[in-house]
């Protein structure tokens, strides 16, 4: 399935400056692999050593966070838009947790 992937600023050094790329993939897992084949280093930025999505990285398929769908197994359809969104948090003190869906479970 051909899908559009929106690339955040910090990753555009890996995509030759491209803010959007078109990728063929059946699900989020294969999308990450396809991206990494074309733009080496992307998988490492998105996934930890165990292959799980990093806590402070969010992937949306259309407007849905894949953490509330099927994570990397989330299927893709032709024409979908996939957005890679950094999770932003911090503060003056203490150990902050990764952002969660507003009103939802962590």
């Amino acid at each position, binding site marked *: 399935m051909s899908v559009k992937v929106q690339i*955040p600023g910090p990753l555009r050094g890996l995509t030759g400056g491209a803010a959007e790329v078109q990728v063929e993939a059946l699900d989020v897992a294969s999308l990450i692999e396809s991206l990494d084949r074309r733009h080496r280093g992307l998988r490492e930025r998105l996934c930890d050593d165990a292959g799980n999505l990093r806590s402070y990285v969010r992937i949306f398929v259309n*407007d849905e966070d894949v953490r509330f769908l099927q994570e990397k197994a989330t299927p893709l359809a032709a024409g979908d838009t996939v*957005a890679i969104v950094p999770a932003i*948090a*911090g*503060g*003056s*003190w203490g*150990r902050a947790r990764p*952002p969660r869906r507003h009103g939802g479970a962590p």
Partner: protein
Amino acid sequence: MRISRTDLDAILRHARSGHPFEVCGVLLGRNGGIVDGVVTVANRETEAPRVRYQIAPEDLLRIQREARDTGREVLGFYHSHPDHPARPSETDRRIAAEGLSDGVVHMVVSVEQGERATPTAWVFHDATQGFEEVALEVD
């Protein structure tokens, strides 16, 4: 980092009005790194909002899309430190290092007693896993 007086004043007002809680927002601009828009965002931190902040990913997704519609992009973020120095904390640094932050601008606004607001600007670098302070130029 260059920012208009209007946008900077909006950030400082937001920071002062939120005291004693941390506030946060998004910095928008075009290529060249000049901030020409600011979006205030709800602090989604529920457990300790006086010392922590969170921007909901779905809020940022919406802001990114709206920015694209106006030919702009997200250049960075701001948050306040109520009665705490205007520099990134170890928490700020650690989370930036774990996320996608290379080259992203972070403004930190110290707010003393809800009145005096002092802004600083920083850029995170993956290479050093830390923040570098940059000059804040106000147009």
